[in-house]
């Protein structure tokens, strides 16, 4: 097995590389998000570039290997952004390199704004990919309303390269807000905090971030300056029973708060395994109690629970049966292998997923074993 990385320069070369594969390939974007399958590496970094940005139609199309930073830079120039605020995994995982837009989509990476603007898959409106037989396939397109044929766009988002290697992605983008502010409540228990987040998310004040960790409960509001001030004021009143919220209305400092939550930076330099548990928000505190973690961060109004536990902890065993799922995000390879990265699925769904993989990748060359 050669250590060389295959780096096709276009979709045609990629298809050829896949057709030529005699065993499993490890599909790479920027390689910053860990969790790869064994086998020689196939990188899409050479298939790069923003191919279309139409600000008046809120659309951007980019090839999969385009660095996320390039996509974001193109958008900033027009006062726009990706709505779903993708996490940067580098600090948490200790990885290097440049995250690519293809990697973001392959892992359906979505940050705090997921509660308001949707996940990566919700902004994704078109894909091109090469399947395990080497066929180039297009689905969706560049328009934001499209129900023509099956929605393989959603299927590809989060499929981690196991159904096909993404080559081009289209997004619905949004205007970036004029400013933002963060309301901060201190000293709430997990249960009180999630109650406060639920109360806030039940108001019409368009909360775009709702998190709790390290004794601080934070809520983000974005938009035009006057509107942010108005909504922050109304929200403070609405939350008075949880304490007197302070407002961070310096947009830079507010942004820093949410970057840290997005990237789970509090866990970055601490030893141990990191898990991410997805549940309905009001179940979050009970999950955290059962997990007995060293550190806990609630995002998504309580529905996304980040847990730092001693290395090798079988968190799923600790949690027992619950409505939701737990993903192992950071651990050594042995722990990933022993516990499994992804939550076991109910048998009928696992059978469908296996059936889809067998259809899209009949020879099992695309990240084999990564998802089951």
């Amino acid at each position: 097995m050669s250590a060389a990385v295959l780096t096709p320069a276009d979709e045609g070369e990629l298809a050829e590389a896949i057709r030529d594969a005699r065993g499993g390939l490890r599909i790479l974007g920027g390689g910053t998000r860990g969790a790869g399958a064994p086998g020689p590496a196939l990188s899409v970094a050479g298939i790069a570039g923003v191919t279309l940005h139409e600000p008046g139609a809120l659309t951007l199309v980019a090839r999969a290997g385009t660095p996320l930073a390039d996509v974001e830079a193109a958008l900033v120039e027009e006062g726009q952004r990706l709505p779903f605020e993708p996490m940067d995994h580098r600090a948490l995982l200790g990885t290097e390199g440049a995250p690519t837009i293809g990697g973001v989509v392959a892992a359906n990476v979505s940050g705090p704004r997921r509660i308001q603007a949707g996940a990566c898959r919700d902004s994704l409106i078109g894909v091109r990919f090469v399947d395990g037989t080497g066929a180039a396939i297009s689905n969706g397109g560049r328009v934001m309303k499209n129900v023509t044929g099956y929605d393989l766009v959603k299927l590809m988002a989060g499929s981690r390269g196991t159904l096909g290697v993404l080559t081009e992605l289209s997004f619905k983008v949004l205007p970036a807000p004029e400013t933002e502010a963060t309301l901060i409540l201190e000293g709430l228990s997990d249960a009180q905090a999630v109650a406060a987040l639920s109360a806030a998310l039940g108001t019409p004040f368009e909360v775009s971030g709702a998190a709790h960790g390290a004794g601080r409960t934070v809520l983000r509001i974005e938009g035009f300056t006057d509107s942010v001030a108005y909504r922050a004021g109304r929200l403070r009143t609405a939350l008075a029973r949880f304490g007197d919220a302070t407002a961070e209305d310096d947009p830079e400092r507010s942004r820093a708060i949410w970057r840290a939550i997005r990237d789970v930076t509090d866990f970055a330099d601490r030893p141990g395994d990191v898990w991410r548990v997805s549940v309905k928000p009001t179940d979050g505190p009970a999950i955290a109690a059962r997990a007995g973690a060293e550190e806990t961060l609630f995002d998504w109004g309580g529905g996304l629970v980040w847990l730092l536990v001693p290395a090798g902890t079988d968190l799923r065993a600790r949690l027992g049966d619950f409505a939701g799922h737990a993903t192992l995000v950071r651990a050594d390879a042995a722990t990933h292998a022993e516990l499994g990265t992804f939550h076991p699925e109910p048998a009928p769904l696992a059978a469908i997923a296996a059936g889809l993989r067998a259809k899209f990748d009949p020879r099992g060359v695309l990240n084999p074993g990564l998802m089951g």
Partner: protein
Amino acid sequence: MEMPAPNPSVLSRRAQIAARLREVLPADAVIDDPVETRAYECDALTAYRCPPLAVVLPASTQEVAAVLRLCNREGVPVVPRGAGTSLAGGSMPTQDSVVLGVARMNAVLETDYDNRTIRVQAGRTNLSLSDAVAEGGFFYAPDPSSQLACAIAGNIAMNAGGAHCLKYGVTTNNLLGATVVLMDGTVTEIGGAHLDAPGLDLLGVICGSEGQLGVVTEAVLRILPAPEGARPVLMAFDSSEVAGACVADIIRAGVLPVAIEFMDGPCIRACEDFAHAGYPDCAALLIVEVEGSEAEIDMQLGLIKQVARGHSPQEVRESASPEESAAIWKGRKSAFGAMGRLGDYICLDGTIPVSALPQVLGRIGALSQEYGLRVANVFHAGDGNMHPLILFDANTPGELERAEALGAEILRACVAAGGCLTGEHGVGVEKRDLMVDQFSAADMEAQMRVKDVFDPRWLLNPAKVFPLAQSQARRAAG
């Protein structure tokens, strides 16, 4: 409309199949009297009709599973049906099929304001969902114009949209979980009240699969807190091109309206005659609605009017009261009814990049002349989802066919402009044969592979979505 020849072996077992269905369902849940099955012979694409072999109206997920298990064993095609408002013939039966209607399954199972979700049986109608959570100050966002009648089941199967999806997204963006029964009777629970699914996004591919992958019996949907207020502004322009350019500039300006609706001259005049909403007589008008507090609305509408002024509008009419808001929306909401008065019409649903609006409108005008048929345009302009309405007279021999041919040309023009055949109504039987204009053989093959996995015998709604020639081998092998 070409449909596959019905399976003679199924037709010959008609009585036996009905008897078997009665073994697994209460007697009143099976209809096979030809007079009664006529009520299910079509959906809202009324030009095409075909009474089914039988109709079943199960009342629970278990009953749905029993029906599917039976039909799978007997090799009988099943056509799932919600409220039958599909404009694409999605729920149109075939002669050898059992129509499985979920209308009896219409309960709200759980309302959860803390987690902002509602769990319902899939036969629940769209509007009644918003009604159910209104007392808590919430609403369900996707709002198809048919929302009074259409069911969540059909909304999920078609990935329905509505006037407000520029801000809130379409069905797939508001669907968190579902109970789905596979053709072999297996009951699956996908997703739930949590925000993301583990593993592959199966819910994402089921949504919009037009009843071909499984029967949805329950759904967990996101509900949202109702905005403090909303207010529309109506803007009249002397050409469609200018109105189109104004739409793009509004979006660029950084405001995100909840809705940007567009009507052209023919449509405006028809609506005026019908609803007397007091619309100005102009070539094109936009209705733009924003949400928030009074001050927030003032600010956003101020910005929008400023952008519009750059396009020299003929008139700008901002609502000053709930009555005026209702008047502004009145004409738009009655558009389909108004067109119905002018005669028969076909409602198209292509989507185009907003930037291509002027060009495509021009092309539609030229095609309309060429075919000698009137076309009125009304659509969700913010997201480029057009609804050209082709007027024709069904009693004039050949005119339906001519209207359909014109429709096909218009949809091809949408695809050529970088858009797609259907933005929210679905492919059904109506646009089945146009799929080749948008997709390569490999693209369609990839989609059909998904069906192979969920429904290996191709018994669920089999003659829809894919051109018959493309799906022939698979349907025959079933």
